[in-house]
Every structure is written in C-alpha cells, then in structure tokens.
C-alpha cells in the first residue's frame, strides 16, 4: 500500500538525492562488482603471482580486447528491441588484418594516422549496422549476423593465418609505462570520454528507448537516430578493441575475431545488463568482461584443459543469467502485486 505522500523521515546520510541517484543508476552493477571482487580475491589466493607487478601488464593487455568488445556489445543491447551486435568479434579481428597487412605495408604506421583511421572505420562500420537496424529496420540479430559473416569472410580471405607486422608503439601500448600498464591509460581515456557523454542526456534517451521505444517515440525522442549513434559508438569500441588486439598478438590474424563475439555476449550477461534493453550501462559491460577474464585466469591456474574451460564458461553463462533473470522477474512480480 504505497502512499502518495513521500516519506519525509529518511535517516541515512547516504540518502541524499545525488548519492541516491548515482546508486540507483548503477544498482544493476552490484552483482557483477561483487563477483569481480570475489574472483579477484580467489585468483590472488590460488595464484599469488597473479598480483605480481610484472604480470599486471600482461593480464591487462589480455583483458583489454575482451572488455572493449564487451562494451561494444553493451550499447546496442541497451537500445532495446532485440538490439545486439554480433559483428564485434570479426570486426575486431578485421582490425588486426587491416593494420598489419594494409596500413603498415602502405607506410601508415604513425599513431597519429593509425588511430584516427581506426576510429573512423569503427564509426562507419557501426553506422552501417545502425542504418540497417534503425532505418532499414532489419532485426538486429540478422543485420549484425550479416556483418559478422562479412567481416569474418573478409578477414580470413585476406589473412587466413597469423602474419603481417605491427608498429612498435602499438606493442608498447600493451606494455608498461613505468610501473603502470599502458592499457590503463587507454581505459582512463575511454572512461573520461564516457563520463562526459553520460553527463548529457544520451543515457537517459538510450535507456528510455531500450525500456519502451513507443513511449520514447511519442514523447519526441528520435529513436532511429539514437540507435544509429548507438551502433556507431559500438563499432568504434569494437575497433578500438581490435587495435589493442593487434598489439597483443603482435600481428594480424583473420581467425582471432569470432571468439570475441561469444565472450562479449557472456560479458554483457555477466554485467547485470538486461538483454531486453533499458537497464544497465557501459560500466556493466566492462565489469562483465573483467569477471570473464578472471574466470578464465582461474581455470588456467587450476590447469584445467581448454575444453573444460569451455564447459565452465557455459555453466557460468547460464549461472549469470540465472541471477540476472531472477532479479528482474522478482522485481516485476512485486510490481504486479500492487493492484
């Protein structure tokens, strides 16, 4: 029996409106954050070297493409209406091919030229997805499936196995700057940009469109344009992941991409993000990627065979969804009983 009059007696200091809003906005990330913490501790306990400084850079650079592709997947999922981007993996894989076999041989090796090219390519390929989903109105899974096949085919056509060469600075980006893994700088830049973006109305519009697109449309949101922008940003993040991946494998390889699509889906599920859209945030994608990474680290430490890793991945995925889905179900149920 909720009363219309708001409760005025609120004892806790934590309940100032600003703090409450931040907590509410990121409430979905509670579970993945908890999982991340637990896994971190377990990893450190099982394998003390995990914490050793010289390992940080390696861990981070392995982690990086996973997290970036997970974040790339997050935005389309948030936009609702079955939003998803299956092409993130092959797109990242294609980046390795592009850099190592097209740009470098053509003499384009400087960071100042390569990075902008990657950014533009990412935005454009994301925009193609966006146009297909928002304007041609193909179901996202079909449109991005088509692009998945396109980039996978293109990548493996050009470079069916590892090859090509990489600019030195890119390899260095996967190393350390002093004691700090350089990847942290990359993450910091992205976090900064994203903080600026999320201060604006984009997130509100995105979550609204993902939550109920008809309401958003009639309220005056340009739904198609928002989705176009969303997929473009997703493409950008995927290509940044591809950039870092190139440095990680120190070359190009048309076959490394597809597994990242799979890990991105898992990471999104692990990140507390609603697969129907409208609930979650970029932080969740990042956390989910981190959780996935730690799980794999743990399995490696336990000398579990590659195949058993696959089994555990599957169980983890279902488990994560159990959590994710049950929470949503319970909340919806409690709302329905108020009638």
């Amino acid at each position, binding site marked *: 029996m909720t009363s219309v009059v708001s409760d005025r007696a609120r004892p806790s200091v934590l309940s100032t409106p600003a703090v409450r809003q931040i907590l509410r906005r990121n409430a979905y990330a509670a579970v993945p954050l908890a999982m991340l913490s637990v896994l971190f501790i377990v990893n450190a306990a099982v394998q003390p070297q995990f914490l050793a400084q010289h390992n940080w850079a390696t861990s981070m650079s392995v982690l990086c493409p996973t997290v970036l592709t997970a974040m790339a997947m997050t935005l389309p999922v948030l936009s609702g209406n079955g939003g998803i981007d299956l092409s993130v993996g092959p797109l990242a894989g294609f980046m390795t091919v592009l850099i190592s076999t097209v740009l470098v041989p053509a003499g384009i090796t400087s960071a100042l030229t390569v990075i902008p090219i990657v950014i533009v390519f990412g935005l454009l390929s994301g925009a193609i997805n966006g146009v297909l989903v928002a304007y041609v109105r193909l179901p996202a899974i079909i449109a991005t499936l088509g692009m*998945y096949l396109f980039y996978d085919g293109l990548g*493996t056509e050009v470079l069916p196995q590892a090859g090509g060469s990489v600019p030195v600075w890119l390899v260095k980006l996967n190393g350390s700057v002093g004691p700090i893994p350089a990847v942290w700088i990359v993450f910091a830049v992205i976090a900064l940009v994203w903080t600026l973006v999320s201060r604006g109305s984009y997130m509100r519009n995105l979550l609204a469109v993902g939550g109920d697109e008809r309401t958003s449309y009639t309220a005056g949101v340009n739904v198609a344009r928002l989705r176009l922008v969303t997929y473009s940003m997703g493409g950008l993040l995927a290509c940044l992941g591809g950039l870092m991946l190139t440095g990680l494998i120190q070359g190009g390889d048309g076959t490394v991409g597809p597994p990242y699509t799979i890990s991105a889906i898992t990471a999104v599920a692990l990140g507390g993000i609603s697969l129907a859209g409208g609930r979650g945030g970029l932080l969740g994608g990042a956390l989910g990627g981190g959780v996935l990474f730690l799980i794999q680290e743990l399995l490696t430490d336990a000398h579990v065979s590659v195949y058993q890793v696959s089994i555990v991945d599957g169980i983890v995925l279902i488990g994560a*969804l159990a959590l994710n889905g049950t929470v*949503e179900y319970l909340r919806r149920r409690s709302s329905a009983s108020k009638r």
Partner: protein
Amino acid sequence: MTDQSPIAPADGSEPGPAARQPTRSTSEIVTRFVAANFTDALPYILVPVLFILSVIFIPGYFSKLSIISLLILASLLGLASLGQTVTIIAGGIDLSIPAVIGLSDIILTQLYYKHWSLPVIFLLIAVAAIVIGTISAVSSVLLHVHSLITSFGMSLVVSGVALEWSNGAVNGAVPGWLTSSVSAIGHTGPIPIPAIIFVWAVASVLAVAFLRLTRVGRETYALGANPVAARLARVRSTWTLVVAFAISALCAAMVGVFFAGYSGIPDPTVGVPYFFLTITAVLIGGTSLLGGRGGYQRTVMGALIVAELTTLLVGVGFSASFQELALGILVIALTSTYGRELKVAAKI
C-alpha cells in the same frame, strides 16, 4: 531478444469498401508491390533461379552427380534447420546445434570403434540429445531468460564435453551403410539416390504435418506469438518449448551421425559452420525471428537456397571465405525485402 510481437495496430477500422489505392511516393509503391507479391513467393522463386544461374556459370553442373551433391548438402542443412525452425516459431532460438552435431559425431565414431552395438549407440545419442534440449528449454523458462542464451550456454558445455572426449582421438569407425547414405554415389536399396535425401523428404513431411496438425504444433505458434496470452489460454508453455528444443537437438544429433558417415573420423568441430547457417536457412526461407509465424516448408526452400548459393560460389571459384562474405551480404539483402520490422510509429 524477442519482444512482444508488434501486433498490427488494431485501430478498430472495420474492413470497409475497397478504396482506390491512394497516391504514394514511387519508392513506396515499388516496395508495396514487391512486398505484397513477392514476399511470400521470393524463396520459392529463388530456388529455381539460383539453379539456373549455377547451370549457366558452372560447367558440367547439370549432371546427376552435381545435383545429388547439392541435395545432400541441402539435406544436411535442412535437417539441422528443422529443429531450428520449430524453436524460432516458438519464440526462441537454438544455438547449441553445432555442439550437438559434434557430440553425436564423437559418440558414434568412438563407440562404434569400440564395437558397441548400433542400436545402443543411437539410443544413447537420442537420449543425450533430448536431455540437452530439455535443459536448454527448461532453464530458459525457469531463469526467465531467452533460450538464445541458455542454448548458447549449453553449446559451450556440450562442445567442451565433445572436445574433451575426443581429445587426441584419431581413430573412429562408422558403419558402411551410413557412409553410403551421404555419398553422392550412394544407393538406397535399388534406387541410385543416397538415403539422406529420402530421410530429409520424410522428415520434411512430418515436420510440416507436425506444425499444422498437432496440438503441440499449434501451441508452438501461440507460444511464439504471445507467451503471456498463451499461458492464459492453457497452452502448455514449458512442454511446448521442451518439445521444440528436443526436436532441434535430435535433428542436430541425426546430422552429426550423417556427418560421421561423411568423414569417418571423429571431428567434434564438424558442426561449427552450422552455428549460423541454420538460422540463415530459416530466415532466408522467410520465417520471422519474431516467432509465431512461418513454417518448415519455407525452411526447406531456405536450405536449398543456401546450398545452391554455396555450391554456386564454390563452382565459380570463390573460396570459403568469400562465400561467407557473400552470404553475409545476401542475408542482409534478402531480409531487407521481406524481413523488415514495423516502424516504431506503426507499433503505436
């Protein structure tokens, strides 16, 4: 993934007297014409068109051997896509098909090599398939999560198991008649057509009958169209989904058995290309991912189209990678003509 199906706005307009078609922009007229006349028919038209193109561009294509090879390819894909059709109509999707194919390939080759009796092996495969499908379906219902994810999770588990089992194994064996059943020069009794094609034909008829004439079949459509209304209308939601996924797993297992016959060696990754090909066949055939509509006869066309395309591209000299690239473009192009969703405005 699947939203509430955007029911066409029932704005209450009574079907009034047929009015003169109002003037519209040219592009709208063309789209409407295409949509109205070609939408349903396009897959059926493409099959012969692609065949003719293949005959033109590939020397020696119009031979019994090529055609049978094509049909074998289509049969394998068609069988694998049978279950996928049902799960998609039910509003779900089965991503565990390649894993089950691989597992059944392994089970057959390994156990037959160890001289297990064939009926027992088949029984074991069938039971494993049913269990896998049931878990995908039940966990989807219990966890309130789309079966895309649960079946995907199952695929990770199953492929892990298959890989683990086959780890390092190079020996395997399959019965001779099985190899013959997928061979282009195989015979079914006196008829010079490999058995798999008959199997597919029979399975197709059964599938279409199942979806049209049985209670579970109708309830599958209802479940995909509107799960909430289905539950209220006494549709056995969980059972229907379990049946859909069990069928899908059984079909995948069957295909795995045939694949084993094809190659003779244990290969747990043999189903990997089918990760998306089954969805492609279903979609190209014109069954909507939204659920609640379509049918297997369309997937038959879809499988034929995909098989023809693959053959055409290979025949003309394109590599597998290029085929994949072309397939990607084709999926997008085809779905743009008959798979477009409603505008947001139209859903209000």
